[in-house]
């Protein structure tokens, strides 16, 4: 469905975006950005610093998720194979 002809047949909002499934990890930053937008709209006392704090929180969330993924990857790929089988 990600061929040029498939893109022509794409129906926005009715079917998934063609070709996006291969780069699904790129969908994390917009999710973190949206959550940060809502959270900071509630928490920031002065809205003049709003977008800056949204940006900081987005980066924190994405880096936190990447760090967790790295730790889990190391655990599964490096630590677990070192454990004795019996």
């Amino acid at each position: 469905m990600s061929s040029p002809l498939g893109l022509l047949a794409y129906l926005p909002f009715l079917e998934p975006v063609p070709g996006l499934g291969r780069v699904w990890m790129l969908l994390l930053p917009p999710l973190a950005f949206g959550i940060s937008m809502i959270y900071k709209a509630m928490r920031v006392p002065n809205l003049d610093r709003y977008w800056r704090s949204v940006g900081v929180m987005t980066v924190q969330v994405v880096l936190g998720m990447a760090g967790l993924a790295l730790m889990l990857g190391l655990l599964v790929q490096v630590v677990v194979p070192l454990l004795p089988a019996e």
Partner: protein
Amino acid sequence: MSEASSNPTRRTLNIGAAVLSWVVPGSGYAMLGDPRRGLLAGAGVLGLFLLGILIGGVDVVDRTEDRLWFFAQAGAGPVAWVADYANSELLKSGRVGELLEVPRGDPRAPVYPKVSSLKGVSHLNEFGTLYCAMAGLMNVVVVLDVLGRREERTA
């Protein structure tokens, strides 16, 4: 002098603003005199919800097949029911796309209802569902914040 103003430590619940904030995300802040905050919160909630539907298709909101997810998505307000209605009327009815038989490996297996050819699967469906659910859950937090927030107006 009202009872609330005579006791400055007492906080009243903004029930009307909270209900309004569920119906139209962010509007509760505007009702309490902070429209800019409401616009930002509302844009975040509705933006996440619409982005979720754009990513995974309208199939990501399904009141019958994904009931538990729908509980979270319903926090975004009536827009969740509109999306579920669109899913039923357009995709599940076969009005858009076509309805396909679900293959049965075992002839003794139950016959499942036909599914739309536009039904989302894999990561995009998961992410779309997650976006809409996060929009709903965050709007619940917004509603609770509006419920206990002091009014900005100095009347």
